[in-house]
């Protein structure tokens, strides 16, 4: 959700920018866009599809996550020259490095997990357990490799929305915003 917000903000800002300056809102063609779909389908299966997410063993899920993100990195590398992609690729690498260093999942501290879902008070999270069958795994700070790259940042504490995110997520959000904002920029022809 926090990444989707960055996309919506960049898209809205870029469209308004183009409209005010009477420019087209134009996109450069991306090379090999099907790679993204190829990477996302396995993730969708193991993290979203209810039947699969409870059946597939954690080891397989972690391998799928690492392979999927590697394919996404290849896509970002191929499209390196598109503005903002170096930020997207940088964020992806930061996430991938910390995921690989912690057994194939993004680490999250038990107190952050507790903060995310406070209703489960009294049932402490088990160390090494996956957080709501997603990309995160519960690990105490002292057992987390590269803790500074883990899901350690929190959204402002109010009850509308709670999420924890990593430094890599910040880069990805910034890259997505920049890319969509730039599409309303000077390089494109004026509206006629």
């Amino acid at each position, binding site marked *: *959700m*926090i*990444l*989707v917000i*960055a*996309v919506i903000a960049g898209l809205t800002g870029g*469209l308004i920018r*183009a409209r005010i300056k009477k420019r*087209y*809102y*134009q*996109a*450069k063609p*991306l090379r090999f*866009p099907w790679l*993204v*779909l190829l*990477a*996302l389908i396995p*993730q969708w299966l193991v*993290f*979203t599809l209810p039947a699969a997410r409870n059946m597939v063993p954690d080891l397989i899920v972690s391998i799928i996550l690492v392979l*999927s*993100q590697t394919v*996404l990195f290849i*896509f*970002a590398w191929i499209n390196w020259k598109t503005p903002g992609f170096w930020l997207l690729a940088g964020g*992806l690498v930061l*996430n991938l490095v910390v*995921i690989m260093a912690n057994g194939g999942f*993004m680490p999250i501290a038990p107190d952050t*997990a507790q*903060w*995310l*879902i*406070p*209703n489960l008070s009294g049932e402490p999270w088990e160390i090494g357990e996956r957080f*709501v069958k*997603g*990309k*995160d795994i519960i690990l105490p700070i002292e057992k987390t490799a590269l803790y500074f790259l883990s*899901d350690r940042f929190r959204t402002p504490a*109010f*009850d*509308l*929305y*709670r*999420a*924890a*995110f*990593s430094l*890599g*997520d910040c880069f*990805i*959000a910034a890259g*997505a915003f920049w*890319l*969509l904002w730039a*599409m309303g920029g000077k390089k494109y022809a004026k*509206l006629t």
Partner: protein
Amino acid sequence: MKKQFNSRVALFVMTLVLFVLGAGAPAAGGGIINFIFGPLF
């Protein structure tokens, strides 16, 4: 006059959204928004 938001832009944005969802790893939990929509990965 050309449409300001054409099909190439739509494809670009859709690809970007999928990339961002796959590359990012935030964890979502509580809050009204997550209660309604579920924790988007």
